[in-house]
């Protein structure tokens, strides 16, 4: 079920809120929320409900075992087993065909016939997100930083909670546990107002900006990637740079808004990332819940930046390689991750040697361009496509051109307006939401404008991960 659909906005959400706030008692309400979230998930494909239930159960019971057991060897074995289980599921559904396909291709290249069968499995939506949610729970208990969930219902509600289930933000049980234990009996009006603002702004970012950017610029131009000239390739990339921001940050705002309406608080996931003055700052502002997850559960355990510059660069490359792979089972994502790893490593090295310029606008512009170049890898369907586009953009080769007319009539105003928003306007978390009647009417009109666009289904870009 998409957030930007009639069935979600006009049926599911009102009924879910009604049930949630009407039912008495925390356990009954958590049970209802879990059921509603499973329905929300099963609407997409009911066959993957048992998979999520299995993953949830394994983490819940492993968490309990880790908390009860004090023998280091057994605890370690349990953790390894659980990580293998979670990552195994992810591996089979997400990466099996990628690795076997790569091996088959490598074999063919070397003249050694390797013909491993491909599974062609459908990727369960949101699996990367809920797997990371669950893994952090188990690791935190193992590290002794978290007490296990009070009951299965609390944990199942945490994993399946529909606002974050499909595309984050990646929430941690440590953050949610006190909220799940003390569900407020009624929602404060201030929380309603904030939740509605976040929800509608997120919806507008997605359906009025991101989808329009895709329709007016990105889809028509990228479809002709082989014949784009330099200017067109830059326009397509700029369009995608803005589209992915409005799409994903729109989703995150909606998730935060929905959480508010249920009486929960989710963490911030975007903080005007295109204003970042360095690549390191960019990753502190973009998909923050993933960045911090990678920092806490991968980068720091690998040694972080504690053991010298070379080790820090290696660690950055490793975690960004894995981060790239997390996004998708394709070489384009792997190279994208490594590219960012290199940028982060170079930045760390420059900072260590005092070579980072302290002119913020210059740094922001440079970071923006470097991030844009990275999105070419992210959006392309093959390394060859990305390589061609990057060559055209940098003037190494020239494209045929003549595709400018494929863009929609509003392409340029849309680009300018979107750039204005990402660079100069306060983000959703910086806004002080107006509370006047006039603002309420304006927000209702904005909601209607979004609803009118629901007839054309448009999944969020991050659903594929």
């Amino acid at each position, binding site marked *: 079920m998409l957030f930007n*659909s*009639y*069935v979600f906005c*006009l*049926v599911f959400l009102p009924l879910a809120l009604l049930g949630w706030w009407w039912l008495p008692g925390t356990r009954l309400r958590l049970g209802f929320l879990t059921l509603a979230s499973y329905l929300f998930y099963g609407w997409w494909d009911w066959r993957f409900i048992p998979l999520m239930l299995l993953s949830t159960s394994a983490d819940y019971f492993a968490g309990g075992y880790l908390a009860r057991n004090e023998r280091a060897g057994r605890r370690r074995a349990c953790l390894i087993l659980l990580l293998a289980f979670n990552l195994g599921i992810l591996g089979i559904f997400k990466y099996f065909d990628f690795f076997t396909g790569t091996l088959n291709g490598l074999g063919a290249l070397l003249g050694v016939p390797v013909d491993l069968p491909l599974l062609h499995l459908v990727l369960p939506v949101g699996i990367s997100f809920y797997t990371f949610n669950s893994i952090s729970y188990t690791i935190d208990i193992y590290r002794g930083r978290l007490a296990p969930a009070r009951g299965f219902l609390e944990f199942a509600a945490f994993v399946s909670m529909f606002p974050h289930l499909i595309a984050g*933000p990646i929430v*941690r049980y*440590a*953050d949610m546990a006190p909220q799940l234990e003390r569900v407020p009996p009624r929602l*404060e*009006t*201030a*929380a*309603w*107002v*904030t*939740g*509605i603002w*976040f929800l509608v702004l997120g919806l507008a970012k997605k359906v009025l900006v991101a989808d329009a950017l895709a*329709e007016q610029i990105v*889809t*028509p131009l990228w*479809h*002709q990637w082989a*014949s784009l000239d330099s200017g067109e390739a830059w326009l397509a990339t700029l369009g995608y740079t803005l589209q992915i921001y409005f799409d994903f940050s729109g989703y995150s705002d909606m998730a*935060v808004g929905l959480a*508010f309406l249920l009486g929960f*608080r*989710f*963490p*911030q*996931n975007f903080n005007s990332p295109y204003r970042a003055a360095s690549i390191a700052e960019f990753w502190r502002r973009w998909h*923050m*819940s993933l960045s*911090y997850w990678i920092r806490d559960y991968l980068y720091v355990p690998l040694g972080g930046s504690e053991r010298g510059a070379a080790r820090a660069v290696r660690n950055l490359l490793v975690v960004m390689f894995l981060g790239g792979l997390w996004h998708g089972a394709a070489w384009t994502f792997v190279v994208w991750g490594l590219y960012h790893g290199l940028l982060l490593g170079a930045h760390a090295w420059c900072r260590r040697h005092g070579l980072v310029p302290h002119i913020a606008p210059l740094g922001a512009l440079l970071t923006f361009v470097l991030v844009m170049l990275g999105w070419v890898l992210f959006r392309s369907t093959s390394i060859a496509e990305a390589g061609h586009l990057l060559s055209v953009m940098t003037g190494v080769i020239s494209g*045929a051109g*003549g*595709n*400018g*007319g*494929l863009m929609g009539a509003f392409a340029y105003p849309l680009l300018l307006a979107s750039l204005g928003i990402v660079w100069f306007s306060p983000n959703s*978390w910086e806004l002080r939401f107006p*509370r*006047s*009647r006039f*603002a*309420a*009417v304006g*927000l*209702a*009109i904005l*909601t*209607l404008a979004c*609803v*009118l*666009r*629901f*007839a*054309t*289904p448009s999944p969020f870009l991050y659903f594929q991960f």
Partner: protein
Amino acid sequence: MTLPHAPAEPSPQDGAFLRSFFLTLLLLLGGTALFTWLVDPLGRFGTGLVAPVITADRDQKAALLRARTPRPTQLILGSSRARTLDPRCLSRLSGEPAFNFAVNGASSDDLLAILHYLRALPLPLLPHALVVGVDPEMLQGPPGPLPGLVASRALGPFTGPHPSDPVATLGADLLGWQNVSAAAHSIWSRVAHFDSLPSTVLEPDGRQRSPRIEAAQQRGDFSGAERVVASIPGILRRYESFGQLDPDRVLVLRQFFREAHRDGIRLVAFIPPVHPAFERAAQATAWRARTEETVVLLRSLDREGVLRYVERDALPGIGADSTAFVDAIHFLAPVADRLLESLFNRPGGCALQ
């Protein structure tokens, strides 16, 4: 956890804000849904407050086809440039009942979707012949089926995954932008021209008529020549970025013709004629190049024995008769009849016996 949470700072205005928001939203959603339901621009509810303007005609044509008796066995397909071809004329030429299923803004995906739709009807319809106007513009555009086709209740399901749950269907019917704008367009058209005839109407056999133009022609004040000249730059501009036939759409077109051929359907293909003034103005333009590429494509299918392609040279020239064109590329009944006669090599065959 180091990531911040948003505060929800209370304000004395919160209650009034929520009341105003929900009330306005309810009124807006309800009002919009009621408006679309009353106008019913696509004939989904049977209310039909005013005559709809034709903005999304795929479903209207599908409904007309289903209601047609005897069932048509000769179909005309194509874009808006084939919408004025007269099924009565085709019936006279073929001796079989005919129907015009040409749709506005068609792409090759439409042709394939229509073929699959005909097969999937409760009583499958396998026409004996298809007369297909292949407009080069059917072979361009953004990737994937175009929005008008995807949104079609009848044809959309044949383009890939399509919302099938009743809420999505009802939501799209009452609150979808396409329907709401079609309803507003219908009302505007009625208000702006309340004392005049509708600009276009669909006959039960799918043919498009233009009552306003017909009336102007009868009065003798139809300014066809001006319309033709005025439309040329805009049409040529549309082609400026049309650098090549889209390979995916070409594949779909080939698939359509081959599938229809395998089904035993006789296929006649042609490129709809344009006004001579446009032909002259479009020398050495992308329009000319794409048209020639389309000719090559259709000839290759002809050589395969999949279809019979009628060369452009064999189609009627219209001389200086600008009154037979609405604009540089859309012709009216006189050209349409002569075109069908040329396709069947039966001069005068459309005349009443």
